[in-house]
């Protein structure tokens, strides 16, 4: 099991040194910083705008980073043939997938932490007290990103890096709309179609479960049960996606 750890740690090293990643995080910090300017001209709402913009920045850039490093996972390894020297080592393909996933989660954690620190620093400079609600919102963003990276890995096991990136982006969008699919029976007059769409609803990752930004900024409380169930959903979905990835990857002939 420590092999998974070694693979994770080296994946972390590899991705964290990527210059593009630095630029993305920098961008995010800039965006957070600029929210300060917007806040100044807002009248009555400086803090709300900063909070909203800050959370949005962390969420969007987190998503971009997740997709970007997610596709640099199995896809790139296969294209660049780094796997050729790795797989003959005494590791199993499962260990490879899990190790990669954990490594990416670690990279994501660092990036989100950096962006969050910038965010809280700005709030602190404005005299805002530490709000646990915001922290929870960021936590949820992170869980959402963990699910997204899992999806990226799934696509990476069988498509090229570009396609994997596109598909993952598509799933991100679909995951927000998925609730539309749920209630098709109220719109369509058939028996079959709503069943198909309902199945699709459960199959797609429902990112709305993690969307608590509005609540956090409005200062509304986040009940523990909501946190627990949403996290459980995230973990279950990640497990599902990883097992599927391992299954596909195991059968894969490397080119």
């Amino acid at each position, binding site marked *: 099991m420590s092999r998974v750890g*070694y693979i994770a740690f080296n994946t972390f090293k590899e991705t964290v040194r990527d210059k593009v990643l630095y630029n993305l995080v920098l961008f995010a910090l800039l965006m957070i910083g600029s929210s300060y300017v917007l806040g100044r001209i807002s009248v009555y709402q400086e803090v709300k705008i900063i909070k909203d913009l800050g959370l949005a920045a962390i969420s969007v850039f987190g998503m971009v980073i997740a997709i970007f490093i997610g596709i640099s996972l199995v896809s790139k390894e296969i294209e660049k*043939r780094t796997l050729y020297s790795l797989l003959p080592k005494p590791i199993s393909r499962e260990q490879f997938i899990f190790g990669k996933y954990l490594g990416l989660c670690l990279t994501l954690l660092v990036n989100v932490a950096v962006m969050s620190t910038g965010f809280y620093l700005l709030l602190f400079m404005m005299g805002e007290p530490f709000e646990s609600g915001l922290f929870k919102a960021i936590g949820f963003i992170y869980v959402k990103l963990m699910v997204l990276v899992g999806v990226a890995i799934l696509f990476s096991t069988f498509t090229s890096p570009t396609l994997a990136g596109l598909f993952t982006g598509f799933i991100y969008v679909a995951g927000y709309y998925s609730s539309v699919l749920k209630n098709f029976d109220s719109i369509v007059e058939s028996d079959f179609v709503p069943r198909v769409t309902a199945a699709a609803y459960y199959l797609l990752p429902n990112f709305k479960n993690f969307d608590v930004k509005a609540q956090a900024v409005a200062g509304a409380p986040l009940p523990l049960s909501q946190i627990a169930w949403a996290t459980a959903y995230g973990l279950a979905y990640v497990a599902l996606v990883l097992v599927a990835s391992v299954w596909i990857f195991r059968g894969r002939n490397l080119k």
Partner: protein
Amino acid sequence: MKTQSTVIKVRDLTKDYDVGSFSRDKLRALDHLELAVEEGETFGLIGPNGAGKTTTLKLLMGLIYPTAGVATILGKPIGDLEMKSRIGYLPEQPYFYDYLTGRELLEYFGQLFGLGRSERRTRVDELLDKVGMTASGDVPLRKYSKGMTQRLGIAQALINEPKVVFFDEPMSGLDPMGRREMTLLIRELRDSGVTVFFCSHILPDVERLCDRVAILNRGKLVEMGPLDDILKVSIRTIEVEIDNLSEALAAELRGKAREIEKTGSRARIVFARQEDFDAAVGPLTSGGARLVSVTPVKQSLEEHFVAEVSGGEPK
């Protein structure tokens, strides 16, 4: 023949690829390959491009799965984790992680082999030294030249002091100096009892190093056996050097010898067959000529190979 010291065993190994739209056709990259490699041997797998050499190695390393057939290494099935900890592999045109340094890569692989920290450190230093990369150990891999990458590739194949090593084109990317070092290294491995299995299309290297070879063409095994046996079949000519060849003698030999070349008092005569030479010995010596040297010229592996491969084209 199964003996306890058979380290690589391949039976009936076949690999088909789907080609064409909707995978209608199949390309057979490897056709029922059968071979066995004994402990301590240096075994060469040769063949033209597309013959199936790299396919064989990829199958052995578990990077691709066979359509049919079985292979074992050290008695264990392909993919067995314990067995993988005792082998080393150098892929063709290796590529590593851009953002790690050479040292970090070796440390990483050492970790995967379960080497302890201090043991790892020692091993890594040793290996970097052995492949002449100590100075570049801390340079990021994306800055490596082809030769440097190849050297690092060799190092990572040896990190665990393997019992069996698999090299795919080990000389590629190396300058003449590097090739010489690699040759010495393979000899060293052989001397310490390591089984070496490698593919190459640089036949002089194979000739120099291997105990046994297998020739592949278009996925099929054409010939396999000890190098000497393969080449013994094909003694090509006999070259004789003589002193004091008289004109009369030369004229007499002209019919029997393929070639006569005079340089001052020395003559070089090439006989096409052993029998021709045998027949000429009497007249030569009684004719006053003095035999300086007699050399049976074996067909080079290259020539043999070309003949084998271009001659009877297997379907």
